[in-house]
């Protein structure tokens, strides 16, 4: 009997498009058909836990405590993002913050107050799980001490509905590095997974050379990506650059989130790295979540934000889904 889960079915279920946005749908069609459920079961057999459809949101660079001409409104964009997420029809399972939660302060007491204000605003999110990594404005001056006091470890991993999430800290060392100790930890963490496991890495700085002279790089990012290279479903979410950006290299897709304080210009535009000036008429332009449909006046209506399918990859070669299909024939 022919296995009903053929390559075409997989493609239809997994999709191949990945864009830039805020609400990430993980394998949204996996639960929608018998073929999808079979794919999920196959991956579960292989990876230890079957991915089941869910969504999550990435927010970044809230810079709580910042005040200045690029954004005189302080935390308003952050608070608006919280309201938007709470109003979504589909409530995300998880919100990931990719660093620069706070703006740095020379006064540790003031910086701690900023972290408490961040937590107060973030705690309004009606989601089961909130995870974060530090940015250099959170952890650069004290090696992450205040951040650890307020939020816990700066690197860690966890599993959620068949997806392995890895938080990497590339800001707490004096240089913009992950460091050999954390890379050794990463290799050990990855070792228990087969190469087909869906992996989401979240960190602050880009793990590739996006624009080194704007400090948009991680010194040992290559070593991190080499450790991840055997894995075929890798998405890296990061912040730091205060604008959208998508970059694919090898099996990994790197996606940057907008900031919630001010935006930086396009690095290809030949302009200096200066915040895009504040526009009082459009105060949230280029910030945070991209709302594509404001809520209507009717009761029960909710906003719609740009949605991204975070999918399982179409595999090439002798490994991956083709191999899984072969192995799963007796499912």
């Amino acid at each position, binding site marked *: 009997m022919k296995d009903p889960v053929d390559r075409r079915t997989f493609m239809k279920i997994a999709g191949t498009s990945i864009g830039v946005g805020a609400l990430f749908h993980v394998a949204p069609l996996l639960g929608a058909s018998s073929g999808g459920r079979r794919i999920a079961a196959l991956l579960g057999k292989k990876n230890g836990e079957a991915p089941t459809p869910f969504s999550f949101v990435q927010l970044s660079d809230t810079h709580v405590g910042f005040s200045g001409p690029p954004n005189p409104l302080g935390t308003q964009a952050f608070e608006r993002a919280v309201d938007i997420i709470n109003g979504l029809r589909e409530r995300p399972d998880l919100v990931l913050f990719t660093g620069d939660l706070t703006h740095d302060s*020379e006064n540790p007491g003031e910086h701690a107050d900023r972290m408490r204000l961040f937590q107060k605003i973030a705690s309004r999110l009606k989601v089961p799980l909130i995870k974060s990594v530090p940015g250099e404005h959170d952890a650069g001056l004290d090696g992450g001490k205040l951040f650890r006091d307020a939020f816990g470890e700066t690197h860690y991993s966890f599993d959620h509905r068949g997806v392995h999430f890895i938080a990497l800290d590339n800001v707490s060392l004096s240089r913009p590095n992950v460091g050999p100790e954390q890379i050794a930890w990463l290799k050990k963490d990855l070792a228990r997974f087969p190469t087909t496991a869906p992996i989401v890495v979240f960190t602050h700085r880009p793990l590739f050379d996006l624009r080194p002279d704007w400090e948009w790089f991680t010194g040992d990012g290559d070593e991190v990506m080499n450790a991840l290279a055997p894995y075929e479903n890798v998405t890296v979410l990061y912040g730091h650059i205060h604008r959208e950006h998508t970059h694919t290299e090898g099996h990994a897709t790197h996606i940057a989130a907008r900031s919630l304080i001010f935006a930086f210009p396009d690095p290809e535009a030949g302009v200096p790295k200066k915040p895009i000036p504040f526009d009082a008429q459009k105060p949230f332009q280029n910030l945070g979540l991209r709302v594509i449909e404001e809520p209507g006046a009717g009761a029960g209506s909710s906003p719609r934000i740009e949605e991204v399918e975070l999918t399982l990859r179409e595999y090439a070669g002798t490994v991956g889904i083709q191999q899984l299909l072969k192995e799963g024939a007796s499912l």
Partner: protein
Amino acid sequence: MRYTRFLALLLLPALVMTARVSDGGEEPRAIAITAKRFEFVPSTITLKKGETVKLVVTSEDVTHGLFLRPLKIDTDLVPGETQQITVTPQSAGTFTAICHHFCGAGHGNMKLTVVVE
């Protein structure tokens, strides 16, 4: 005899080094650069393509960094220490070196423009 050979081997590197300096004629031009929050002084230096120069860099306050990938500069600047960086730029252009040790709110503006003529 054995002692003389040993002495000669010991002195050889020093002789070679001396010869190198003598062959080149002159010590490379030295450019002093000071790092402090949140600037490099001077903020611009001008080099010549193919010319070897020695950058003599110090920090006046906290630990900074100096990073410029096209010239393979990647160094820490610890207060009280002097870094001597020898470079020979191979292509003309204007490059931006940055501090890559987070040093406070103005860190992002801490840049050194390197003009290679």
